[in-house]
């Protein structure tokens, strides 16, 4: 789409890739997104720890955004290290919840689970392992049904 005009000193919204590129060429200063603030993140982290299910995240890409912004523009973000720690805490809590939920899913052999508010990054990190384990379980489970007799040769 169209962007600009870029007047020096005035804030403008651009796509993230452009922002990172301009920053690397030292042509701009990045403003942190509204949710990337120490108090807000602390509240979100405590909320996440209290709840047993997953709480909504400020953005479906919070991990990726955090990593990119903190790696390229940490001088523009106040208290960058604390933010990094807070986001990592949230990530760890959510991954732990995911594991507990996977474990109870397997133990009770349920057929269907619904997980709200999961971001793609979390799904991809634990997804392959879980699908493979469930595949194995499915095969072991179908052994329980007596199979139709396979063809055997008669002499």
């Amino acid at each position: 789409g169209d962007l600009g005009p870029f007047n020096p000193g005035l804030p403008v919204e651009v796509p993230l890739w452009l922002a990172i590129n301009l920053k690397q060429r030292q042509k701009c200063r990045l403003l942190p997104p509204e949710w990337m603030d120490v108090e807000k993140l602390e509240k979100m982290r405590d909320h996440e720890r209290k709840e047993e299910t997953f709480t909504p995240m400020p953005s479906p890409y919070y991990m990726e955004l955090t990593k990119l912004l903190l790696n390229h523009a940490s001088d523009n973000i106040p208290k960058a290290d604390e933010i990094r720690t807070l986001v990592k805490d949230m990530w760890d809590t959510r991954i732990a919840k995911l594991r507990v939920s996977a474990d109870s899913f397997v133990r009770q052999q349920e057929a269907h689970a619904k997980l709200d508010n999961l971001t793609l990054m979390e799904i991809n990190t634990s997804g392959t392992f879980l699908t493979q384990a469930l595949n194995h379980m499915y095969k072991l489970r179908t052994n329980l049904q007596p199979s139709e007799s396979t063809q055997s040769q008669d002499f």
Partner: protein
Amino acid sequence: MSEAYFRVESGALGPEENFLSLDDILMSHEKLPVRTETAMPRLGAFFLERSAGAETDNAVPQGSKLELPLWLAKGLFDNKRRILSVELPKIYQEGWRTVFSADANVVDLHKMGPHFYGFGSQLLHFDSPENADISQSLLQTFIGRFRRIMDSSQNAYNEDTSALVARLDEMERGLFQTGQKGLNDFQCWEKGQASQITASNLVQNYKKRKFTDMED
């Protein structure tokens, strides 16, 4: 496409093993205690201690106990049971089944036969009356051990994992590797290696010939 070789995966857990899968071939080679129902002529040459002697054509007499690999036992087994009858190995019998139901995590499944699940699933073809119990026990053992495999595979980054996998059987080791791969990929992303271009491992092995070699 970063891999040069696509493996055929094991079908052993399901209804039939895959002919081309290396895991299945290895699994199928494990031995099974078996009792012959008819005499088998001339096989006494292989099983010298069981043979009836040279006069009777070196036959293995009826009712003798042998240990045959699974692929051979499966081929000879017939529903009318004219040739062989199969005995279940100890770990699939009642005694061990109660051990597994008590606590599945304690057992060293690698020692019990490194292909516990695959072999057990293929054993179900032999129509034993305990089939339902065996399959139930396999499933429950897997469920019991799942948590530990998940935790250990997802938390051990860049460490020596031989102590962790020592007690897992082959199928569980495959799962462990998948978990480790997921973890490694995540760490790779975190470090930023995902956006760097690295030489493919196929090409790295091509050493450049020296110019002097080519002159000859």
